[in-house]
């Protein structure tokens, strides 16, 4: 077993192990171990990324030496490496943020006897609870305090699950990893205290329904192909007799619907807004940047690697791309109508999800029968799909970086000022130049302006849409870009503009300003910068994704 292979296994198993250990430790060692894990994972990622991106090899590890179909196989091809990099980069940044600012990890009930002696000294001291929550404790002994130590085991287990999904070589581990992600994500949302429990429960129902559909889909694929391994199943299905085709298509439909539920594609998006907006400040960026990428990854895997494309998928691809287009436009319009920062960013996620499903149209083939017969241009079906894949992955990664920065910044402002209502946050930008800079950079990334990674993604997607003759997709992308620029300006402009009426301006409580140290502004700023800088890696991403590609 080579060093790279060990790193592959450790990427999944190390966070899981640390999660189990932290569960029995008090809070401070939990933080230390969490930060330690976040420092080790990039080191483990490096050899995996090196051998996929530079050497162009697919890294493969059969755990325990058992080969498929019996054993568990971890496999890192280009697609895995791309998503894994996102998971490690964003995960490390947010772990750093949560460690520096434990307030951002949620809210918990404590009893007055232990709370009162240290109440005045503690920075929280119940000053942050929202009015509805402040009223309740009067007639009960529990008092809400910021910070929740359960964040650490839950987040580390979630990280392990994400890496497991991205590295899984078989469908069964994909399912288990996705369940681990779903379960911990629900619990992470619930850390937000009383107001977020309802949202967490709703998320739980959606997550379970989605997973069960995935499970049936996988079961169908197993009953046709007799194997769980992604590559083997793909190979069997490619030569499968005609009569098994309807079952394969049914499995694809079930998996697609299940994943659409989990990724909150319109019209299944309603659960996402309260869950992402109500989650604690350190959790929202994780949910938006990483957790919803896992189902996207599964969809790409199943659509491109397992079930071969065919004429009979035409209806499904049309439905998906129409839903994607509806999400882009509808999500953006709804984002424009929000008065609070975090719901606005959550609706922006709904809109961004739509872009990734425009991909379905390209997989479904060109609308004009064959790729455009422009003189001197020779475009094959595979070129269209591969450039659409690069575009979609670039947009998903760009969204991950930008949205993590955006949610971190918005969550920080909400924690500091006790509100995320945009009218009340007027002019706060002068206190936090770094934070607003991070939001500005991530807004450039989210809107897909040049030179961000999302711009490369939109460019590739548009190119392949034109090549396939889907001109409507270009219109959707342009409308979506304009609308997203509009709602992002709406979100950031109030932060920069002084309130006209001095009386309504929010004051920063003295004791809280000391927490607005440079250190807490660093993770959003780094992520914001990466959104832009990663745009230069667009071409590299194209090369990376050809490693282990099905064409």
């Amino acid at each position, binding site marked *: 077993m080579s060093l790279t292979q060990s790193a592959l296994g450790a990427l999944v198993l190390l966070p899981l192990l640390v999660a189990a250990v932290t569960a029995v430790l008090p809070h401070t060692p939990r933080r230390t171990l969490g930060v330690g894990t976040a420092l080790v994972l990039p080191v483990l990622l490096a050899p995996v990324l090196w051998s996929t991106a530079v050497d162009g090899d697919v890294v493969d590890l059969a755990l325990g030496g058992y080969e498929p179909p019996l054993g568990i196989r971890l496999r890192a091809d280009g697609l895995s490496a791309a998503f894994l990099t996102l998971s490690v980069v964003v995960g490390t940044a947010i772990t750093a943020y949560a460690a520096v600012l434990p307030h951002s990890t949620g809210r918990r009930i404590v009893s007055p006897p232990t709370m009162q002696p240290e109440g005045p000294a503690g920075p929280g001291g119940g000053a942050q609870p929202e009015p509805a929550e402040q009223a309740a404790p009067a007639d009960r002994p529990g008092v809400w305090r910021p910070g929740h*130590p359960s964040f650490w085991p839950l987040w580390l287990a979630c990280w392990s699950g994400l890496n497991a999904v991205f590295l899984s070589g078989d469908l069964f581990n994909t399912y288990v990893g996705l369940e681990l992600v779903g379960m911990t994500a629900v619990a992470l949302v619930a850390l937000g205290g009383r107001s977020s429990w309802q949202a967490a429960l709703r998320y739980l129902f959606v997550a379970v329904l989605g997973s069960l559909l995935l499970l049936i889909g996988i079961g169908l694929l197993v009953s046709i192909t007799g194997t769980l391994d992604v590559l083997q199943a793909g190979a069997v299905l490619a030569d499968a007799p005609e009569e098994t085709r309807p079952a394969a298509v049914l499995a694809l439909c079930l998996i697609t619907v299940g994943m659409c539920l989990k990724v909150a594609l319109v019209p299944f998006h309603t659960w996402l807004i309260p869950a992402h907006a109500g989650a604690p400040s350190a959790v929202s960026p994780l949910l938006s940047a990483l957790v919803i990428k896992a189902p996207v990854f599964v969809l790409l895997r199943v659509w491109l690697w397992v079930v071969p494309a065919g004429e009979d998928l035409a209806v499904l691809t049309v439905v998906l791309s129409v839903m994607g287009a509806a999400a882009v436009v509808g999500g953006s319009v709804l984002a424009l109508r929000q008065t609070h920062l975090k719901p606005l960013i959550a609706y922006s996620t709904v809109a961004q999800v739509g872009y990734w499903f425009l991909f379905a149209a390209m997989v479904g083939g060109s609308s004009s029968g064959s790729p455009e017969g422009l003189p001197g241009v020779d475009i094959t079906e595979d070129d269209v799909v591969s450039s659409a894949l690069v575009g979609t992955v670039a947009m998903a990664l760009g969204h991950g970086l930008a949205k993590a920065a955006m949610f971190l910044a918005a969550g920080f402002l909400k924690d500091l000022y006790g509100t995320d209502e945009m009218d009340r946050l007027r002019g706060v930008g002068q206190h936090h130049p770094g934070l607003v800079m991070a939001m500005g950079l991530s807004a450039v990334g989210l809107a897909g302006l040049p030179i961000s990674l999302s711009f490369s993604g939109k460019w590739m997607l548009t190119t392949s849409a034109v090549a396939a003759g889907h001109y409507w997709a270009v219109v959707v992308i342009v409308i979506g870009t304009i609308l997203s620029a509009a709602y992002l300006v709406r979100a950031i402009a109030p932060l920069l503009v002084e309130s006209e009426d001095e009386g309504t301006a929010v004051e920063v409580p003295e004791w809280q300003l000391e927490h607005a140290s440079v250190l807490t502004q660093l993770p959003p700023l780094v992520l914001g910068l990466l959104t832009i800088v990663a745009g230069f890696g667009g071409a590299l991403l194209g090369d990376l994704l050809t490693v282990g590609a099905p064409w």
Partner: protein
Amino acid sequence: MTEVVSTVQWYLILGTVVGIAGTVRLMLTRDLMARLVAMNVVGIGSLLVLLALGAAAPEIDPVLSALVITGLVITVAFTGVGAVLIRRIEGIEDTQEEAQEDAQEDPQEGREDEDGGERG
């Protein structure tokens, strides 16, 4: 042989019907506990489908049985989390009840708070 196939089909249909009935109930009811039960019904429906698929082959497919067992374990885990959340949500409506719960949880919560307090 035809009889075996029809038995499998019968269970496939049964599983599908149970699953759809559970899904409809899950979406239409507001009662949280009923939704949790409906979620389990969907789970049972989908596991029936998987078992029927496993029995469709001449020899029972152990992989599908493994999927069913994993599905069961995960559904139980999610039901537990859901039940805790429902108890807390409905506890809000009855503050008296919640006060008692908090009193029971005090020792542990208090200890965690000390850790938090030192840092703060």
